[in-house]
């Protein structure tokens, strides 16, 4: 695939925190309609990579592009194309579920019809419909996470970056959220999702296995599994690859 087919590009990203090299030349590209999974051991650099692609911070070297534009530029066109959910997300604890959604709806400048359609759908998927007037800080851990996810899914950006969106989410909701992600990419969105769940990685169109700031391997999960000793599951492949690299 050439770069023009890719709505999200990361080119030779390097990032260092004091003595710690978090990224050491990471490159990847994601096309519209593609669901890209980013996996790797704790500390591999997943969050750093996503933050740079989201324009939250700049790389020391290399660049990121969203539809050809620099996410660091502050260009409003980039802002409206890009959705990002950080690993540590905070909502307004003293606002209710409904009020949080309404706040984010306004922030994303959604018109009334779009907002209420999206809101309905997301409340259904997250099973938070019954709890509209509960304050966010009185929600359970997983309910809070699902509300955060609902808020960041309100707009339909062209590029969506999700940093471990399903931590703490129960198996039923996790299935429903993945069904939603597949609908979104079918509509042409490009999604990058980092995850600690290897069954989720196995469902992505392509996966990048990040290790110490570099890609150890990248490709369709079934192909990677076949190429690397016919691993039965992606988790087996992950464990073998990371042990070998260590």
């Amino acid at each position: 695939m050439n770069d023009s087919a890719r709505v999200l590009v990361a080119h030779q990203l390097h990032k260092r925190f004091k003595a710690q090299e978090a990224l050491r030349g990471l490159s990847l590209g994601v096309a519209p309609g593609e669901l890209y999974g980013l996996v790797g051991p704790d500390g591999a650099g997943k969050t750093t990579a996503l933050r740079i692609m989201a324009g939250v911070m700049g790389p020391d070297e290399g660049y990121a592009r969203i539809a050809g534009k620099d996410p660091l530029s502050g260009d409003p066109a980039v802002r409206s194309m890009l959705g990002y959910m950080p690993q540590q997300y905070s909502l307004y604890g003293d606002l209710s579920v409904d009020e949080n959604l309404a706040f984010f709806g306004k922030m994303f400048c959604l018109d009334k019809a779009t907002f209420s359609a999206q809101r309905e759908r997301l409340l259904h998927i997250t099973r938070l419909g019954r709890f509209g007037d509960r304050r966010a800080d009185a929600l359970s851990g997983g309910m809070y996470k699902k509300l955060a996810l609902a808020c960041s899914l309100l707009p339909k950006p062209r590029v969506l970056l999700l940093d471990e969106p399903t931590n703490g989410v129960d198996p039923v909701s996790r299935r429903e959220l993945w069904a939603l992600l597949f609908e979104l990419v079918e509509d042409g969105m490009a999604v990058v999702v980092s995850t600690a769940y290897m069954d989720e990685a196995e469902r992505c169109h392509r996966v990048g296995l990040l290790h110490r700031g570099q890609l150890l391997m990248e490709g369709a999960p079934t192909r990677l599994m076949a190429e690397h000793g016919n691993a039965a599951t992606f988790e087996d492949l992950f464990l073998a690859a990371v042990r070998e690299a260590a």
Partner: protein
Amino acid sequence: MKDGVVIEVEGLSRRFGHFLAVDKVSFDVKRGEIFGYLGANGAGKSTTIRMLCGLLKPSEGRAAVNGVDVAHDPEGVKRSIGYMSQKFSLYMDLTVTENLEFFGGAYGLSRRQLAVRTDEVLRAVDMIEQRDTRTGDLPGGMRQRVALASAMIHDPPILFLDEPTAGVDPEARRTFWQLIRTLAGQGTTIFVTTHYMDEAEYCHRIGLMVDGRLVALDAPEVLKRTHVPGRICRVEGSGASRALPVLGGLPGVLEAHPFGAGLHVRFDETRTGMAALQAALHDKGLDGFALTPIAPTLEDVFLAVVEAK
């Protein structure tokens, strides 16, 4: 205290305003047991744990932890337990060692004990190299390991772990569970919640919560036999997502969902069978799928119980 029972819960309830978060829950946990507490988001797991740790007053019922009543002597309970909360409880601007020393000090460990225990728990969670790192600079999965280390710094006989492995990588999760099993083997009682169903397999017994009520309680093997109606087969082949709507709509199919790169289909064996499923795929021009019968997993138990409510 009943023989070997270290956690005794009877008719325990908790209300928030009119909302009943925990509804007359009763169970016992024995010394050295790994007790898994499962349920959907909002089912009442953390609320139960907070009551058992003496952090939240029960609305009704009673519970005793290590023989101490949680409502009458919450401070007494806190001395014999370690608690790892679902939310981060660490000081982000302290180093890893400083955090452990802070928690150890709060539990009354001496300087000498602190030095020994800090080293031991850091080794146990494989974080010795990061001991001088500022906790806020650690990636999420590693902070989780420090939180576990801080919960066991004082070597408590009972550990309450609320989603200890959320976001932890597969390798570290395995190491973590080896540690849990070693601790349990030495007599530490483990009360743990998780949304990873593969981890729940390590538990001796599992309690399943639905909307505040404890609806099932047994060993994983028993739950799989008794709580998953029908049979399950795995469907493998390219384009499994196209097979999903076809199979999901067939008579006798109780449930069909994606699982890894393939599908899991649960069906009523008195109404349909694997040959019929194959035939239905063939009718839609979908060929080349391999169907293999599989034993139910705890994920199947979870889905069957939670969806059946």
